[in-house]
């Protein structure tokens, strides 16, 4: 398993920090890509940050009321070695689904 750290991104043009309002996930949680992770407040607005990837949460940084600077660690995920750092999402293998049925009268000559 490998650890991937996600730093606080710049949430507006040139914002330098954000204040944690509420964590929506905690250590040990398995999260999906785009799942809301945390609500933070900047000088412009309060926003929910979606997860950049799927993985298990290892650590979160800062509790309610704490300020975090842009670029500092926000959350650390644990992911399998063979998916660590990849761009995109590993496709899920699903049972094939169909709506179209075939009909044909085949001459076998």
């Amino acid at each position, binding site marked *: 398993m490998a650890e991937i750290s996600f730093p606080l991104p710049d949430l507006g043009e040139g914002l330098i920090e954000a204040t944690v309002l509420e964590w929506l996930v905690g250590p040990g949680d398995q999260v999906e890509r785009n799942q809301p992770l945390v609500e933070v407040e900047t000088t412009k607005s309060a926003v929910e940050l979606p997860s950049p990837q799927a993985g298990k949460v290892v650590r979160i940084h800062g509790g309610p009321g704490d300020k975090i600077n842009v670029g500092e660690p926000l959350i650390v995920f644990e992911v399998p070695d063979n998916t660590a750092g990849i*761009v995109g999402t590993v496709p899920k293998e699903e049972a094939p689904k169909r709506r*179209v049925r075939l009909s*044909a009268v085949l001459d076998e000559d």
Partner: protein
Amino acid sequence: MSNSILESETSVESPAAGTVMSMQQALNRALDEVLAENPKTLIFGEDCGRLGGVFRITDGLQAKHGEQRVFDTPLAESGILGMSVGLAMAGFHPIPEVQFDGFAYPAINQIVCQIARMNYRSRGTLPMPITLRVPSFGGIRAPEHHGESLEALFAHVPGLKVVSPSNPHEAYHLLKYAATRPDPVIFMEPKSRYWQKGEVDVARPDPAGGSPTGAKVMREGRHLTLVAWGAMVARCLQVAELAAEDGIDIEVLDLRWLKPIDAAALAASVRKTRRAVVVHEAPLTSGLGAEVAQLITQGCFDTLRAPVERVTGFDVPYPSGDLEDEYIPNIDRILFGIQRVLEYKRG
């Protein structure tokens, strides 16, 4: 090898004498062996060295073979491929990586104007034994430039060979074969299939006795041939199983080599089934499906029961991840294509 992809994913107890591994692991093993067997081989690209590649294909190779032979490059594809030209002229066998399909564009000049024609230009005195690995096609919800299908662009360039594996077994053997060629090979890895496991028979590339440069029948059938390559082969095998529920017996031909195309295998399959649908992720217009349709028409005109159908991506830029399920041919679109062929009536 018939049904190998589907069977190997659902049952690891099948009796073949292979090792079960992912395409990632199969490619990594092939590269490891090529480095060990040929001291002139070099592997390089963005993040190929210390990180082991963004898809882990070169994982551990720098630690094992050293920083002189497996190394990182600056983020500049024209430099990666330009350097490959010089290294090949100096007698090396480069295996460069372009991290994603869409980043091959900045290196088009080096690929088309140098790599593809240096052997021709030098009357055979400067061969270009370069295997360019390109993680290709869509299916991983990635941003722009990370889901493109460039096979028709590359196939159109005289001097290049183009190949795409469809499963771990093919990946291992086709990469080992490509890396020993004296000619430049564009090796298109279907990135959405990197993690799926399958059986790899290391000792036997083609147990059925086929040519390493030929197409391969992955499932035999009587009524219609589905022609595909890369990630679409697995989808066509799923479609074939569904069609069997409706009494339609489908043959799936994995083209494997996209330049040159195995025209004889196309003709042999479609002369038997008399109907064909070609499936690819790339846009329709001037896609490789047109070439395949012509080769089938040429080889099977008298026996064809219907015009060859194409089920492809659309003539738009590759969409963002949220829309790619609408863009890439899905099971129902392929079934519709099959139905159009089945119900065709001569006028």
